[in-house]
């Protein structure tokens, strides 16, 4: 068995480029199947992927990398764009953060039904502000 796997490893090392090119060509020729295959893989491995990402983010290397990334202009502008979008569309996370500002609990602990009501209230208050201006 080990001979067989050693042979295969050797064979793969020799033919790696050809195998990858062949697979890539198949993917380009069958976009629908490829999308479906990738979606299935994502669904199957979502939890593992998240775990890996978190493990990396907590490691020294990951921390340093993310810290460098957060200092870049592209990250800052993208983060601002995202924040503005959440504020303008009154996204759940924005409403929850506003509601939890002076509370001793996290925004995620607030019931959804209360968040929805607060969102409507914020919409109304914004409209009233616009009327005043």
């Amino acid at each position, binding site marked *: 068995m080990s001979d067989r796997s050693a042979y295969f490893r050797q064979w793969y090392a020799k033919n790696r480029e050809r195998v990858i090119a062949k697979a890539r060509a198949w993917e380009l020729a069958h976009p629908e199947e490829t999308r479906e295959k990738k979606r299935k893989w994502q669904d199957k491995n979502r939890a593992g992927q998240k775990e890996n990402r978190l493990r990396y983010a907590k490691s020294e290397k990951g921390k340093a990398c993310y810290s460098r990334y957060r200092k870049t202009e592209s990250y800052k502008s993208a983060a601002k764009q995202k924040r503005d979008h959440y504020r303008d569309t009154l996204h759940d996370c924005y409403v929850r953060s506003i509601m939890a500002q002076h509370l001793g609990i996290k925004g995620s602990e607030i*019931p959804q039904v209360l968040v929805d009501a607060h969102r409507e209230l914020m919409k109304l208050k914004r409209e009233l502000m616009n009327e005043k201006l």
Partner: protein
Amino acid sequence: MKNCDELRKELAATFEKLKSGEIKPSEAAELANIAGKMIGSAKVQVEYYALRKESPRIDWLESPNG
């Protein structure tokens, strides 16, 4: 308004009426004021139970569709 869901619907209706000019801004502001107090009160209740690590059923937050 018997529950939070009804309050939300009322707020949404008021918003529409305000936009179409059916009601005056002062009337809408009154409702917004009262709604803010009701939501604030429910929020404090949720916080109180969360800090006591209790999770009782709060009738006002129960949705009839839920």
